């Protein structure tokens, strides 16, 4: 468990943002942390959709319960946060 910065590229938003998360977080928790800085700020909520995390550089979609520590990301590496059907 350690603090870990990621760069959040949130679907529908105009800017990539620095978001502090934790290596022990699941991908669902990472997505929720990123949502705080985009949803209801510049991105309208989309009821019925869930958020998924994708590696920005190669498009790998991470399992929802995968721990951040197991994803092989570098500190500040950019991840896409996408709206998807549940």
């Amino acid at each position, binding site marked *: 468990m350690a603090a870990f910065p990621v*760069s959040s*590229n949130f679907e*529908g938003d105009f800017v990539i943002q620095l978001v502090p998360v934790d290596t022990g977080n699941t991908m669902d928790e990472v997505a929720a942390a990123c949502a705080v800085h985009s949803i209801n700020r510049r991105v309208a909520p989309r009821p019925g959709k869930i958020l998924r995390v994708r590696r920005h550089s190669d498009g790998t979609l991470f399992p929802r319960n995968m721990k951040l520590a197991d994803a092989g990301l570098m500190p500040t*590496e*950019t991840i896409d946060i996408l709206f998807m059907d549940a």
Partner: protein
Amino acid sequence: MSLLKREQWYDLTRATSWTPKYVSEEELFPEQMSGGRGISLEEWAKYDEPYKVTYPEYVTTQREKDAGAYSVKAALERDAFIERADPGWISNVQAHFGAIAVGEFAASLAEARMMRFSKAPGNRNMATFGMLDENRHGQIQLYFPHANTHRSRQWDWAHKAYHTNEWAAIAARSLFDDMMMTRDAIGVAIMLTFAFETGFTNMQFLGLAADAAEAGDHTFSSMISSVQTDEARHAQQGGPALQILIKHGKKAEAQTMIDVAIWRSWKLFSVLTGPIMDYYTPVHARNQSFKEFMLEWIVGQFERQLLDLGLDKPWYWAQLIEGLDQTHHGMHMGVWYWRPTVWWNPAAGVTPADREWLEQKYPGWNKTWGRCWDVITDNLVQSRMDLTLPATLPTICNMCNLPILGTPGDGWNTKDYQLVHEGRLYHFGSEPDRWCFQIDPERYKGHMNLIDRFLAGQIQPADLAGALKYMNLSPGEMGDDAHNYAWVQHYQKKAAE
């Protein structure tokens, strides 16, 4: 006493050349400072500046220019235009002075490098005047805003900005350090005078002068028009240097310098001039959109100059043109959303009339940028100011030092151009930003952008308050909405209906 005619002595006095006896050519013109690139002094002596001026002529003209600009200022001072100006216009002027004034002083050092170290006598002669020009520009653009410092501490940022670690100041310093403070004389002639001044200062100084006149700010309009007459002259130093480089097989190197300088200049102007022209200036005072100015001055005129010299359009030209519909809208939204981090009060520029103008000039604006502004506006209508202020920092490009942006809403395309170099992960806002780094990583790899400094613990406390302190922004200096959110009333009334 009879005087010789100008043409009888001009060529002799402009050369200021002599044959060194006590030092070698390399000692007189060190390559690192001169950038002669193996071309002989005889060849550099063929440098033929298109604009010829003598010192007496220069002094006479400059005196007249200063007298004109300062007279307009003095005559209109009692008119107190600033007291009744649209707050968005005041933001234009404050942003301009902070980003430009001290940089002009720095430019006089770049001109001085050409004046002393260029191997081309004509270049040395013109740069003498160029150095005096830039000194004048620094002085006049500090003197004029100083008259308003009793009105607000934000005016003091005309002088203060470059001496801080405010993010826009870091971005401006990074650009100017790269293309004018750390290049040899010929590099300065090409990157500063040809690429930056020929193209971009025209837009800032002529475009903004036109908007200023429309907005009723005749003091500012006459001042920056006066500055631009100097720029138009000393910007011509690059052309003859390029001709010599091309003649001696150095076209590729010249093209690379131009491509780097144009891209980096474009990015800075997308955050400085773009929001000013398309959002801060009141709709009725806008002459053309930022995109239209760019198409006229950069894509049209400057492209023609490149081709006339035998150079090519930069490899990323299509990307730059595509960016005219995108980049500055994102820069504007970022500046407004992170408004406490700037020294001026950004005007949102999204009243119904503004949005109609934006949709007309940038078809699709409402479905992209408008989507984000819809959410921001709804929050203000519902008194959720907290959601319109940042709770973190944007990821920043390791080349332009500006946020990494894309088109939002229905056209979402935000992309980070990442690169791992010697084990460090770098972020770039575009392919050309990353290319600038990749062609010379030794030059750029050590620079730490604001996020790098934040993560390295240089910014304490490690939160937004700490970042504002690091940027030297105090209450009274931090930006807020230029119109104090009066524009939200349109939407409140609509919501109440």
